[in-house]
């Protein structure tokens, strides 16, 4: 039993963090927002060079073969730096689906999937992922490939086979679209029970990825708020010395600290295919969303009117927070999943039931 990260894992996170700090500074993000696609091929290339796109690609397909635990660290960095890129959707969600999909007799198809996986690892394609919990598909218009669901079926559709209608979001870093398409035998990846299982996996990965980003966002908004209250003066002293202000931020810090291990258990138990991992993921989504929500709320409060402006960096992270809170299952959705578990007479709960139920 060891519920901590290895030095390698922490060092990798640290390296990514340092890289994003310079490559994805707020000014750069604002520039990317302004472009039509909202995406920067240069940034994506640099991210790929760091190995992030290959994180969960199997080693035999040229990737690093890491799993959900590594992503629970990386998604925090993506959130912290507000990366305007559907990196996690491509390299975590879609890569997961393509790897999970069973091999078939169709050699050509297997070959193609292998190519897609390699391309994801190299960072040369974007994949958008649709799911009924999200009414709109993020990045559909710029994706080369789309994973889309139809009943119990899972399909992989190329960009030319879909129609999109773009819909603007309050989060300028997002590119949402309504997608129309026709399922076909050619695009089918999995169906029936296998399809259902993959769909569930997509939802769980999406929620876990959103949870990690929310936690990173919460930390960023807290850091921005600390910086602000340490220099803004009123009544002849910095406002960070006022107890009411301190307590606002102490509450945010507490929420973040308590959400972290919830996220990590979810990631690890998901990786271990524990029977309860869906519940753990829902808990993680709830805890991380609540931490980020409070970080935004208290963040804008301690910024005063500055917090209500376009100029201040806080807004970039607040808006991401608000949209991610309800993406991949909103808080109500995840609470319902937890409730179902807690009140089910067959589930053992209480002391000693925290880990490793099989």
């Amino acid at each position, binding site marked *: 039993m060891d519920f901590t990260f*290895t030095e390698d894992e922490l060092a990798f996170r640290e390296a990514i963090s340092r890289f994003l700090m310079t490559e994805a500074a707020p000014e750069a993000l604002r520039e990317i927002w302004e472009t039509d696609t909202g995406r920067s091929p240069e940034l994506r290339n640099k991210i790929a060079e760091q190995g992030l796109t290959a994180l969960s690609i199997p080693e035999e397909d040229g990737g690093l073969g890491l799993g959900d635990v590594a992503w629970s660290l990386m998604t925090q960095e993506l959130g912290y730096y507000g990366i305007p890129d559907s990196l996690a959707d491509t390299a975590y969600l879609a890569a997961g689906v393509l790897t999970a999909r069973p091999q078939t007799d169709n050699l050509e198809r297997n070959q193609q999937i292998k190519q897609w996986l390699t391309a994801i690892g190299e960072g040369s394609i974007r994949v958008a992922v649709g799911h009924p919990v999200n009414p709109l598909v993020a990045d559909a218009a710029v994706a080369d490939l789309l994973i889309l669901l139809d009943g119990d079926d899972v399909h992989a559709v190329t960009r030319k086979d879909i129609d999109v209608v773009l819909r603007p979001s309050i989060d300028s870093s997002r590119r949402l679209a309504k997608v129309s398409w026709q399922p076909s035998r050619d695009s089918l990846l999995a169906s029936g029970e296998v399809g259902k299982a993959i769909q569930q996996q997509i939802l769980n990965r999406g929620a876990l990825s959103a949870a990690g980003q929310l936690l990173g966002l919460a930390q960023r908004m807290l850091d921005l708020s600390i910086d602000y209250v340490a220099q803004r003066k009123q009544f002849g002293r910095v406002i960070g010395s006022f107890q009411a202000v301190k307590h606002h931020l102490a509450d945010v810090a507490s929420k973040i600290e*308590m959400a972290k291990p919830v996220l990590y258990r979810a990631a690890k138990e998901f990786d271990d295919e524990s029977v309860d991992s869906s519940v753990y993921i829902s808990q993680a989504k709830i805890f991380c969303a609540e931490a980020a929500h409070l970080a935004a709320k208290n963040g804008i409060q301690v910024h005063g009117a500055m917090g209500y402006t376009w100029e201040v960096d806080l807004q970039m992270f607040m808006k991401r927070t608000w949209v991610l809170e309800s993406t991949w299952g909103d808080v109500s959705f995840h609470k319902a999943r937890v409730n179902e578990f807690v009140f089910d007479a067959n589930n053992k709960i209480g002391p000693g039931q925290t*880990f490793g139920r099989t």
Partner: protein
Amino acid sequence: MNLTYTKQQQAFRLEVRQWLADNLPEQKLASYDTREGFEQHRVWEGKLFDARLSMVMWPEELGGRGCDLIEWLIFEEEYYAADAPMRVNQNGQLLLGSTLIEFGTDEQKKQFLPPMAASQHMWAQAWSEPNAGSDMAAITSKAIREGDHYVINGQKTWSTRASFADWCFGLFRSDPTSSRHHGLSYLMVPLDAEGVTIRPIKALNGKDAFAEIFFDNVKVPVVNRVGDEGVGWRVAMATAGFERGLLLRSPARFQQTARKLVELYKANQQTADNDPSIRNQVSEYWSAAEAYALSAYNTVGRLNQGDKIGAESSINKIFWSELDLKMHETAMRILGSRAELLDNDAQEAYWLDGFLFAQAGPIYAGSNEIQRNIIAERMLGLPRA
């Protein structure tokens, strides 16, 4: 990261579970806030000690069994899951005990720890004074050295179960010219010493849950001092955070309360659902208790790697005290008009007792306002006022 228990850990869990199943008192013990109940608890803890299950983390030669922190968590999980009696000597065992293990001399450890583990000596904690509550550095009780002993004068207050305890430990001003956290010494004082007067204070439940302690020229040998003279504050603080953050309130306690709350809800679902928000609250608190357990496992993992506990002890303290309060408030709402029953044998009394005690959680062990200040200043680096 590896979330499976080792064979040895699993075997320990089963051993504890079996021992508790075989040895738990058949009758519920009386409240330890009464003399009678206090003595019943003493007997129970003696039994735990005989099985070397009293202080599992202490070294064997001091009456423990040398368990690591993970095994301690496992022990606590089994202990609470079995609904075993609440521990009555925690102030001594967890606060003073850990301090002695770190700062005590070999003689002190040999003399004080085994009887403490066996609850032959029950300990009261004597930090607070009438004018030194949150501001503990305002302590004025004096301990003036005269040769091989100190002479203590002053008053302590809010000392939990001092009415029944055998010993107390606390901070006293050994340098009369000093101020704030300088010049304090950490002393252990027998409560039957000449010059000690105890005045019980009735708590909300009408019982003598704490007491004032008056010291009138009380002589205490110098060997009863923990750590060097004048650095008592540092000695006390070195263990306070650890206790507040981890040992004092193990997560199993709240996981068990959460589990019972789920049961209470299910047994009263029809009335409880009159307020549909209750269902969500119950499930939310279960999740929160889980989060606290996860956080403890994470902290333990880091401590095992040599880390020190930091401001997270303040975060934990706020978290468990507020969670405990919320869980009991919800239980009271589920019970509705039955919640007021004080009858000790009634099932409801479990919740009422807990509800009353939960009121104190945000106050004792450093009030939650003070914990928020600590988080803001020491963890976030915000300036002091």
